[in-house]
């Protein structure tokens, strides 16, 4: 195991230090990007940092030594990328209305998702397919939304993974409120396992007022919530520099809770830092903001054409920082995974893709009639009236059909 590149690194998060890491993406001042697994596949042996004046040793949270765990992180990333490719293909073939690719963000999503305990609850935006995987959500269920047969697709309570929210930032206060509920549950029954929530949002969404208000509430009530911002550099066509001139992790300072920037393409660090943040939140110390510095390697959605607004060169620059490639390099170099592992995984992914395709083609549209029942929990005369109209109206066509 190559751990010579760095000693137990001491990253002074608050100071204006120029990062010494090869992975430091660009020259934004004021914050260091935490990383143990470098793009070249080398792994540092430890990770400590000073965060908001707090000295943190992340070593207890680092899975760097656990070969099985590292392989399983790789497996998750690999599977979800394959899922992404298959979904893109399904969209191209007209089987999905739209697809929102995650390629490039596997490290951020699998790392943070794997850090969650079963009792934690995740609030995604719309791109968190990797987190869904870690929560055990049936992946085909995600495609229901994009096939246009539902706005949901799964029961969030089963896997503690909320539905996708398309109004940017709107889920962030929900995560805080849910966390406030967890606090009250804990008070009422201290034997419950402490739990936290995690709110996912993007660099673009960070500008919305709801992000601010949820951070104010979280800080005020010490809510057990981790704000997880995937800064993938783009909000559709708008670079993150329009949303902020300093690292988004620094937003936390203004609310008095810790903000950390991690290399979002380093799944090992993402997992460790998220585990630390969740544990801190669960223990009553309040929220943490994690900025996962990553890159949207694909288009915003299948309806988007990035050549209109970004250079292929930029895309190519991020290629060597791919979250999968570096872990594969490390696993191979350290002798923790052999060809057979990768071949088996390829086969597993192919089978998954086949199943997925089958599941999608089998998804049928609901009828509009059924939608009337989902608006209210309790009886509602207007719904009844309109449903009656609709049934009669449709029946009229059926009759016509019969007569014709």
């Amino acid at each position, binding site marked *: 195991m190559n751990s010579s590149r760095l000693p137990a690194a001491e990253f002074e998060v608050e100071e204006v230090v120029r990062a010494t890491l090869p992975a430091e993406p660009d020259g934004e001042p004021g914050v260091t990007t935490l990383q143990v697994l470098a793009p070249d596949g080398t792994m540092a042996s430890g990770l400590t940092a000073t965060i908001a004046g707090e000295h943190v040793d992340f070593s207890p949270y680092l899975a760097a030594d656990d070969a099985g765990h590292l392989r399983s992180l790789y497996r998750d990333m690999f599977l979800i990328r394959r899922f992404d490719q298959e979904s893109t293909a399904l969209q191209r073939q007209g089987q999905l209305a739209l697809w929102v690719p995650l390629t490039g963000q596997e490290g951020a999503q699998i790392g943070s998702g794997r850090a969650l305990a079963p009792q934690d609850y995740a609030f995604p935006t719309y791109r968190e397919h990797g987190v869904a995987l870690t929560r055990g959500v049936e992946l085909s269920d995600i495609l229901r939304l994009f096939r246009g047969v539902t706005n949901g697709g799964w029961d969030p309570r089963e896997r503690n993974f909320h539905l996708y929210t398309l109004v940017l930032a709107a889920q962030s206060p929900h995560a805080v409120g849910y966390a406030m509920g967890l606090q009250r549950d804990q008070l009422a029954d201290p034997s419950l396992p402490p739990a936290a929530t995690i709110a996912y949002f993007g660099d673009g969404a960070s500008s919305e007022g709801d992000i601010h208000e949820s951070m104010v509430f979280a800080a005020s009530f010490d809510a057990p919530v981790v704000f997880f911002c995937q800064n993938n550099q783009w909000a559709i066509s708008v670079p993150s520099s329009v949303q902020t001139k300093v690292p988004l992790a620094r937003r936390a300072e203004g609310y008095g809770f810790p903000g950390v920037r991690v290399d979002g393409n380093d799944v090992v660090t993402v997992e460790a830092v998220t585990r630390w943040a969740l544990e801190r939140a669960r223990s009553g110390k309040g929220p943490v903001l994690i900025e996962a510095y990553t890159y949207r390697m694909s288009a915003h959605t299948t309806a988007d054409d990035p050549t209109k607004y970004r250079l292929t060169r930029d895309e190519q620059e991020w290629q060597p920082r791919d979250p999968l490639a570096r872990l594969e390099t490390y696993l191979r170099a350290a002798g923790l995974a052999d060809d057979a592992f990768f071949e088996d995984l390829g086969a597993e992914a192919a089978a998954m893709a086949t199943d997925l395709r089958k599941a999608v083609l089998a998804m049928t549209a609901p009828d509009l009639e059924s939608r009337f029942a989902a608006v209210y*929990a309790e009886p509602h005369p207007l719904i009844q009236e309109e449903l009656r109209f609709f049934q009669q109206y449709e029946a009229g066509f059926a009759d016509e059909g019969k007569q014709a």
Partner: protein
Amino acid sequence: MATMTIAKAINEGLRASLENDPKTLLMGEDIGELGGVYRVTDGLKKDFGAMRVVDSPLAESGIIGTAIGLALRGYRPICEIQFDGFVFPGFNQITTQLAKLRTRSDGMLSAPVVIRIPYGGGIGSIEHHSESPEALFAHTAGLRIITPSNAQDAYWMIQQAVTCEDPVIVFEPKRRYWLKGEVDTSAPVGDPFSAHVLRSGTDATIVAYGPLVPVALAAAAAAEEDGHSVEVIDLRSISPIDFDTVTESVTRTGRLIVAHEAPTFGGIGGEIAARISERAFLSLEAPVIRVGGFHMPYPVARVEEHYLPDIDRILEALDRAFAY
């Protein structure tokens, strides 16, 4: 039976809700120590503690948004918006999130959040403190909207809102907060989403709700002196609307006046007029006439009495209806 003001009745209703269900909690600006700017939550923080009566940061989207999260965790949050004109920073959470959660989840998730909004004018206040924005919520499916006009309804309807599985906005007629009435705390009133015929009549029907109910009753009494027998319906629920009760009445009386403080244009009176005109087309002796606010921002205190629908404005509308 006890006599209490509407404000006190809501206070007692909230107290009962807090006592009946440990999952209920109150959230809002100044609702704790102060007991709300109208003292509707007076004493509740003292008795139920800061975890159940929460003085929130000053952010309406945050209030509604965190309430949705609490509801997802099984709580029943009751939010107070301090004044009608200050609900708009929370409009997005109400319209795109709260209202749609159930449909979005194909009926799996409920968000039984209650939003209390003191509304309406006539209190001599400054801008944004006298508005009637109910129509802006009624158009959105997934919400329910009720508004009590008396202490008895106030006491029960707030509790019914809390136990309802759907999100409910309770518009509280703030200029009637000090209106006293008898409250029977032992026997709940019936369906909060039904209209009540408060006075029966044969020549015309007035539909009103919230703060204008006493005005409608007074207008009917005045009309009686002129020899007109006028029925008065307290709508009570703005979404859904109990069209059956209104239709039944209009079928008998042949004339309908709808009165609300909100501006007429695009107001809920249009919905009532349109639907009753359709349902009771052949019974109508005159068009449905709406009495409401003018198409302008709620005016300054010194002229509000000319703006607000009053007895005379309703009588004038009745005259027009009788002229057909």
